[in-house]
C-alpha cells in the first residue's frame, strides 16, 4: 500500500499551484464571477500550452493520455480557485464522451482540437425536468432529408456560453436508453446559449430553434449514446470530485488561517471550542471527499470495477463542498460574506456542483444498484 503521490504527480502539483497563484489569485477569481462566459481567453491559452486541456486525451488524438489520478492532481489545484472555465466540461467530460461515443474518424477530427484548446466542448444532457437519467432525455430530433432538425431546450448545461461545440443527448427511440449523441456547432443558426442568473456558476440554458444538423453529426451509432455517456461519466465524475476536493481544501486553509489570525476577546478565535468545532466539521468533510475520490481514481486507473466507488465519491463530494463552505462561513462570520474575500465564490460553486451530473440522492441510489443490494 502506498497512499502518497508519485514524484511526477508532486511535480505537476507544484507547477499547477504556482500557475494558479500567478494567473488566478483571489481578485481574478472574484472578477470572473460576473462574466457571461466562463472562459478567460488568456488563461485558457496558457493552460492549453501546459497541456491541461488534453490531459485525459490519449496521445494518438493529440493529448498526453495521463492516468486519471494524474489529472486529478491538476483538477484539485484548479478547484482551489475555484477557477471557472470549461476545463472539466471540455477537457474531461466532453473529451471522454467523444472518446467513448464517437467513431474513429470523428475522434481524429475532434479530439486534437479539443486537446489544443481550439475547440471547446460541452455535453448537453439535462432538460427542464432536471433528471440525470436517460429517461430525462426527451428532446427528439426530426429527420428531414437525411439530416436532423432540433427544436427544444437543454437546461443547466455547464459552460455552454463559452463552448464552440455541443454534444447533445437526444431521444431517438422508445426504449428507456434509446439515446443518441449529436455533435452540434454551438454557433450554428438557431442555437442560443444563455448563462442562468443567480447563485449558480455558469449553468446555461441552450435552446434549439429549427437547428438542422447533417447525418454525419451523429456521434458513433444511433441508440448507443447513453452507454457511451455512462462510460464517460464513470471516468469523468472522479475528476469533478477532485475539483471539489481542491475547493474544500482551499476553504479549509482559509478557515484555519482566519481562526489563527482573527482576534476577538483578546485571543485568536481558534481558541474557542465552538470555532474549533466548525473547523473540525470542515476537515471531516474534506477528508471524506478526498479519500472517497482517490480510491475511485485508483480503481479506475488499475482496471478494477469502480462504479460503486465513483457514485459514492460524487455523493460524498456533492455533500462535502456545501457543508465545508457552511462551516467556513461560521468561522469567518462577516468577513466570509464579503464578496471580495473569495469564500463566496466557493459557496456558489459548491451549490452549483451539488446537483451537477447528479445530486447525492441520485448517486447513492446508483451506488446501491452497483453494489447489487
Amino acid at each position: 500500500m502506498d497512499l502518497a503521490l508519485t514524484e511526477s504527480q508532486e511535480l505537476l502539483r507544484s507547477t499547477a499551484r504556482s500557475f494558479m497563484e500567478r494567473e488566478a489569485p483571489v481578485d481574478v477569481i472574484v472578477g470572473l464571477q460576473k462574466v457571461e462566459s466562463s472562459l478567460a481567453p488568456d488563461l485558457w491559452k496558457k493552460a492549453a500550452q501546459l497541456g491541461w486541456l488534453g490531459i485525459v486525451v490519449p496521445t494518438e488524438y493529440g493529448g498526453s493520455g495521463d492516468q486519471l489520478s494524474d489529472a486529478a492532481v491538476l483538477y484539485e489545484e484548479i478547484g482551489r480557485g475555484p477557477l471557472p472555465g470549461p476545463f472539466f466540461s471540455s477537457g474531461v467530460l466532453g473529451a471522454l464522451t467523444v472518446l467513448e461515443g464517437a467513431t474513429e474518424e470523428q475522434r481524429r477530427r475532434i479530439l486534437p482540437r479539443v486537446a489544443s484548446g481550439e475547440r471547446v466542448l460541452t455535453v448537453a444532457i439535462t432538460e427542464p425536468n432536471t433528471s440525470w437519467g436517460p429517461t430525462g432525455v426527451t428532446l427528439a430530433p426530426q429527420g428531414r432529408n437525411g439530416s436532423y432538425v432540433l427544436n427544444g431546450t437543454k437546461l443547466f448545461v455547464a459552460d455552454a456560453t463559452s463552448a464552440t461545440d455541443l454534444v447533445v443527448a437526444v431521444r431517438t427511440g422508445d426504449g428507456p436508453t434509446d439515446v443518441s449523441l449529436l455533435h452540434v456547432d454551438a454557433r450554428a443558426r438557431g442555437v442560443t446559449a444563455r448563462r442562468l442568473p443567480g447563485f449558480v456558476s455558469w449553468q446555461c440554458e441552450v435552446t434549439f430553434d429549427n437547428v438542422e444538423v447533417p447525418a454525419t453529426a451523429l456521434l458513433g451509432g444511433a441508440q448507443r449514446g447513453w452507454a457511451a455517456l455512462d462510460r464517460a461519466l464513470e471516468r469523468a465524475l472522479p475528476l469533478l470530485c477532485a475539483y471539489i476536493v481542491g475547493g474544500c481544501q482551499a476553504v479549509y486553509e482559509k478557515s484555519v488561517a482566519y481562526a489563527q489570525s482573527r482576534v476577538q476577546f483578546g485571543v485568536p478565535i481558534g481558541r474557542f471550542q465552538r470555532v474549533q468545532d466548525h473547523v473540525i466539521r470542515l476537515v471531516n468533510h474534506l477528508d471524506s471527499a478526498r479519500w472517497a475520490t482517490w480510491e475511485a481514481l485508483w480503481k479506475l486507473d488499475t482496471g478494477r470495477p469502480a462504479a460503486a466507488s465513483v457514485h459514492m465519491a460524487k455523493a460524498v463530494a456533492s455533500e462535502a463542498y456545501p457543508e465545508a463552505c457552511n462551516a467556513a462561513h461560521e468561522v469567518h462570520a462577516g468577513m466570509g460574506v464579503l464578496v471580495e474575500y473569495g469564500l463566496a465564490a466557493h459557496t456558489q460553486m459548491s451549490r452549483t456542483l451539488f446537483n451537477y451530473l447528479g445530486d447525492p440522492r441520485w448517486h447513492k441510489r446508483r451506488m446501491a444498484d452497483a453494489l447489487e443490494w
Partner: protein
Amino acid sequence: MDFEVTYTEEQQQFRREVRAWLETNVPADVQRTPTSPEDNYQRYLELRAFGRKLGAKGWLYPTAPAKYGGGGLDVDYAIILEEEVDRLDLSLPPYYDSGGRLGSASILVWGTEEQRQAFLPAIYHGEVRTWQLLTEPGAGSDLAGVRTTTAVRDGDEYVIKGQKIFVGSDNGADRIWLIACTAPNGRRHENLSWFMIDANLPGISMQPMELMGTGGEGGTDSGVKQTVFFDDVRVPAFALVGGENKGWTVATTHLELEHGGGGRIGRNRVWDRLLRYCQETKRDGVPLTQQPDVRDSLADIYIKTEITRLFGLRNFYLTYARKAKSYEGPQLSYYRKTAGLWMTGAILEMVGPAALTTDPTWGSSAGFLETQQRNGIVSVHPGGTTDIQRVQMARRIGIGRSTREKAGTVHGAEA
C-alpha cells in the same frame, strides 16, 4: 393555556378598519422586486411615504407610548396590525429601521425625559430612518472591544472619529444609533457610550460593501451593508444616551431585543411560497408535493418553521405579559438561524438547481428560493453569530459561568 388570541367585537371592528385603511393606503405594487437602482430608490421612497402615513395614525410603532408619538395601543391591537400588514407581505416598519426599533427601545429605558421627547416622535412618526452602528473591523462578536470609533468630549460636543463596517442598508439614513469608545484607556465594559446622531453631519461618509446576500428594504434585515467613516464629526453632547461610559448597560437592552428577546408573530413567508411552489411545480407530470422524497423534506422544513414560530410566539408572550425571561431570546435567534442554514441544503436537494437561479422562466417566482439560498447563509451572522447565541444560552441556563446571567431589560417608561 390558550395559543390563540381571542378578539373582542371591538377588536374585530379594528381589524376591519385596518384592513380597509391598508387597502386604500398601501402603495400599488410596493412589494415588487425592484427592476433597477432607480426603481429600488423609488420603492424606498414609496415605503417611507407609507411609513409616515402609518406613523400619523400611531400604527408604525403601535405599542410605543402615545405621549412620545407612538400608537399607545394594547398588544392585542398591535397583533392585529402586525397580522394585517403581514398579509400584504409587509412589516412594521415597512422599511429597514434597525436603529429606530432598537434605538427607541433603548432610549425608552435609558434616555432622559428630554431625550425621549427629542428623539422618539420622529422615529415613531416615520419621519426618520435610523441605522444601528455597532460593528468595527476589530470588534464583531466582541462588542465590548469597540475601540476604533472614539468619541471625545469637547465643550458641549463630542468629536467622533473612526469606522464602522457591515452596517446600514441601501438608500441612506437620516439618523444613526451608534456605540463608540468614550474612554480609550478605560476598563472593559466601562468605556463605551451610545449616541443618537444625525446621519448627514459633515465628516460622515459611506461606502457600500458587496455581500453574498441580496435584498433591500423591508423587514428586519438588509442585504446591502455599508462601511461608514467618521472624520472628526461634531455632535451635541445631548446625543449621548444613558450616561458616559454606561454603554455596556444600555447595550443589554439593545442586544436582548436584537437577539430575539422581543419575539415575533407572523407567518413564515418562505414557507408559504415554498409550499405553493411545490404544489404548482411538476416533475414527471406529478406535483412535487406528491413525490415521497419531497413530502419527507417538506415535512422536515415545515416542522422547523413551526418550531421557529412557536419560539417567536412564546417570546412575544413573555415580553408583553412581562414574564421573566432567561435563555429564550438567544434560543429563538439560534434556532431560526440554524434552521435557515439547514434549509438551504434541504431546499436545494428537494427542488434541484432551479432553487439557484433568478431566471424568470426556470427559477422560482421573483427568485425567492435563490434569495433563501444566499440569505440562509448570510443571516447566520448579524446580531450575534450562532456561537454567541449558544454562549449566551449557556450562561443564562447557569452552566456558562459561576453566576447565572440575566436577560437584558426591555421594558421602559410607560405612557
